[in-house]
């Protein structure tokens, strides 16, 4: 083996890396929460009897799903700073990269969550809606009280899997030089001339986190399958 490993720059860089991990998690959680809420709204719109709502939701979802995340992020790094400076009167020098990333990820992920929620709603038997409206609930009430709670339970594994994908995708904020976990690792590696060790370390950390989470999702899935079988 020609390469001599030297891992000594990792311990000193840990606080900086942890800060980066914080940024990654912040983006993940924000996109997850906003994506779930806005995604559910989009999914309900997409199944609504009102045609313009359906078209809007379909257009939104298809547009975001057709474009690479990198491109969406570049768009938001271009457009959001200009809008913010125009609307809020911020000085153009303010660092709004994190805000742009948060908004970009949230709007992008919503399109994917909308599809998961739509599939979840469609997995609930039609008779449920018929029974709920026959009992005198309005369509909105039936959706909120009967359909969505069941749909959400069916979707939990898929939603969590998508969250793992999302966490991995946050590394793409690299295109704006924002120091998320990967960005931080790259910067340290570049500074110390230890790119090989830092990138391998970053890969290992992502692997351990994502692998344990996906194992957890699998166990959850097995448990809910056993629960469903017992019913």
């Amino acid at each position, binding site marked *: *083996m*020609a*390469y001599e490993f030297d891992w000594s720059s990792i311990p000193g860089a840990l606080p900086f890396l942890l800060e980066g991990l914080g940024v990654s998690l912040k983006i993940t959680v924000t996109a997850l929460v906003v994506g779930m809420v806005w995604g559910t709204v989009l999914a309900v719109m997409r199944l609504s009897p009102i045609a313009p709502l359906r078209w809007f939701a379909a257009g939104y979802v298809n*547009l975001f799903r*057709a*474009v*690479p*995340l*990198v*491109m969406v992020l*570049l*768009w938001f790094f*271009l457009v959001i700073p*200009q809008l913010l400076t*125009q609307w809020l009167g911020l000085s153009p020098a303010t660092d709004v990269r994190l805000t742009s990333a948060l908004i970009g990820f949230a709007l992008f992920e919503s399109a994917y969550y909308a599809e998961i929620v739509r599939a979840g709603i469609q997995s609930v038997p039609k008779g449920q809606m018929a029974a709920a409206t026959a009992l005198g609930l309005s369509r909105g009430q039936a959706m909120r009280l009967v359909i969505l709670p069941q749909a959400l339970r069916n979707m939990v594994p898929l939603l969590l899997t998508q969250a*793992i994908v999302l966490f*991995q*995708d946050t*590394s*793409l904020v*690299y*295109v704006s030089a924002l120091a998320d976990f*990967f960005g931080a690792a*790259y910067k340290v590696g570049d500074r110390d001339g230890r*790119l*090989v060790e830092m*990138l*391998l370390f*970053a*890969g290992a950390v*992502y*692997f351990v986190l*994502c*692998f344990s989470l*996906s194992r957890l999702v699998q166990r959850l899935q097995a448990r809910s399958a056993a629960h469903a079988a017992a019913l």
Partner: protein
Amino acid sequence: MSYTWNWAVFAQDTSMGDGSTYGAWMLAGLKMTVTVSLSAWVLALALGCLVGVLRTVPSKGWRGVATAYVEVLRNIPLLVQLFIWYFIVPELLPKAWGDAIKQMPPDVQQMGAAIVCLGLFTSARVSEQVRAGIQSLPIGQTRAALALGLTLPQAYRLVLLPMAFRLVVPPLTSEFLNIFKNSAVCSTIGLMELAAQGRQLVDYTAQPYEAFIAVTLMYMLINVVVMGLMWLVERKVRVPGYMGQ
């Protein structure tokens, strides 16, 4: 601040002295995106089928190897994998090989890393679909094939795979779309594909909206073409009597 639209920018000369226009840069980017994605797709299909089959064979050892392969490639971000292929693998290879790689022209190195990285990354996802396709077949098919005296490889080749491949086509459509979208990540190692050409145009012309709109439209065009192609393939290979579509 008002923005001055100038769509004629694509017909403008790049003043690089070779007479090319900014529009030609965009088309070169499109060509690179398609070349890299299609090459990676061939690799992903070949490896994905192999690993997908290995995940269903009786041998525990082979199943374990295939599972490890899939888990590693699925739980590390694409960007990290790309940087590992581009920056790190040449360092870790035996010195003579690493030096040979580093002496290649930069665009060849970038393309090579991009194709290998996207191909392997996608192969893990393809293998999951292939595995699901094989496992969706009744277990009786394997048993009947073996009982008739076929060897295990024969059972796969003659009974299981011809059916599984047809069932797997619809879910592969989204992976095929993903490989084009994921190729945009390769702009980070300097590969001059569509997204990178878009950014370069912004730097040269200061017309960001035209550049980004053109790139976005090209990705949508790729999407439509791929969906159309896969629709044709799906129609051709659909198994009569199965639900769906």
